[in-house]
């Protein structure tokens, strides 16, 4: 199994349960593990019955967890911009510009961008510290965008750096009688910020795509819609050369049903299980039973143990 593992899948299939128990399993097998919850619902705290905030919190030996939220991250970012504005610009302009920032904070995509930023920060900065980083992601489409982001942002930053460098070079030529001073470009604050972001994005891209440290596990149920959605998601991920490592089929009904309703339900499940075996041939397929009671901190280890077959 790879170092960075993303759990994805349709809403309600049990991503959080699976990622939490997989994290416990990883920690028990001796790997220093970080569990990152990106789902705004943040059920990880509820499962471990421990308050996890947007800081890395220790839960079990070898297991740390963090819940990140786009809303909080974007607020931190905006506040930082506002503080540095105060130091640079006159108060009159600050008032006008603050309006601009507040408008940006409610525009669509802002929280998403802040969340991605934080995820990239965790991937690049915590990569050396942990043996395994597990992401419990929000439903499918979201995560796919994270993988396209380095491409999009990289090209944009590249253009910006070139434009700004050209402008600074021309200005430097104008001031030094046709001579350019290379220091002018390196000392330019705008270019410094852009280069820093560019390096961060490239580092994340290298870790995720080139070093092949990233893999996906999809959680599905033996039902039609989760299967269909996962097929689509796998196609997209393979376009980006991201390994889809395994499929967890969650909530499998017990054998020996007595009631007619449950008997026919079980038959239908078997039909879908056959389809799953056929569709995802070549991938690791792992079945988890439907639990009698909710997963909580006291029974999570039992489920975690089941993952030993999966690895």
């Amino acid at each position, binding site marked *: 199994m790879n170092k960075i593992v993303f759990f994805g899948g349709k809403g309600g299939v049990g991503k959080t349960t699976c990622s939490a128990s997989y994290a416990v399993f990883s920690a028990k097998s001796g790997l220093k593990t970080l569990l990152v919850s990106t789902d705004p619902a943040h059920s990880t705290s509820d499962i471990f019955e421990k308050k996890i905030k947007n800081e890395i919190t220790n839960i079990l030996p070898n297991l740390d967890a963090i819940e990140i939220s786009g809303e909080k991250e*974007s607020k931190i*970012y*905006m506040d*930082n*911009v506002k503080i*540095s*504005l105060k*130091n*640079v*610009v006159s108060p009159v*302009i*600050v008032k*006008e*510009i603050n309006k*601009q*920032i507040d408008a*940006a904070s409610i*525009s669509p*995509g*802002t929280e998403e*961008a*802040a969340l991605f930023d934080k995820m990239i920060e965790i991937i690049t900065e915590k990569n050396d510290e942990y043996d395994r980083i597990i992401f419990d992601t929000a439903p499918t489409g979201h995560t796919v965008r994270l993988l396209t982001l380095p491409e*999009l*942002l990289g090209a*944009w930053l590249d*253009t*910006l750096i070139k*434009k*700004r460098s*050209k*402008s*600074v070079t*021309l*200005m430097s*030529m*104008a001031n030094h*009688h*046709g001579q350019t001073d290379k220091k002018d470009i390196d000392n330019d*604050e*705008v270019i410094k*910020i*852009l280069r820093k*972001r560019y390096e961060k994005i490239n580092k994340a891209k290298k870790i995720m795509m080139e070093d092949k440290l990233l893999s996906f596990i999809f959680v599905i149920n033996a039902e039609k819609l989760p299967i269909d959605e996962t097929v689509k998601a796998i196609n997209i991920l393979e376009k980006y050369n991201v390994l889809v490592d395994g499929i967890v089929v969650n909530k499998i009904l017990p054998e020996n049903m007595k009631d007619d309703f449950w008997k026919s339900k079980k038959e239908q499940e078997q039909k879908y299980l056959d389809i799953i075996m056929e569709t995802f041939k070549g991938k690791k397929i792992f079945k988890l039973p439907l639990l009698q009671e909710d997963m909580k901190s006291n029974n999570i280890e039992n489920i975690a143990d089941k993952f030993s077959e999966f690895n």
Partner: protein
Amino acid sequence: MDNEKVKEFLNNFKLFFQGATDFNRKSQSLLMKESHNEMDDFILLCFGDILGIPIPTSYYSLELLPLIADDLDGWQRRMVSRLYIWGEKWGDFDLDA
């Protein structure tokens, strides 16, 4: 006279003639204009949404705002008054040079 002084004298000599004959004024203003144009494009790529052009990366350009804020007002005015392409092109010819 030692080397330093010769250098200083020659430099001053050069500067005197540069000022007196004004050889560089035209080229300097051209370079500056070109630099400002480049910068206007740069701001457009960062903060186009101020003009109503959606920029998918606008979240990431916010951190540049403190460094660009001073130019933003003038930039906005220049962009909005770009109504007549003739007027703009005419402005490129510096007739009294």
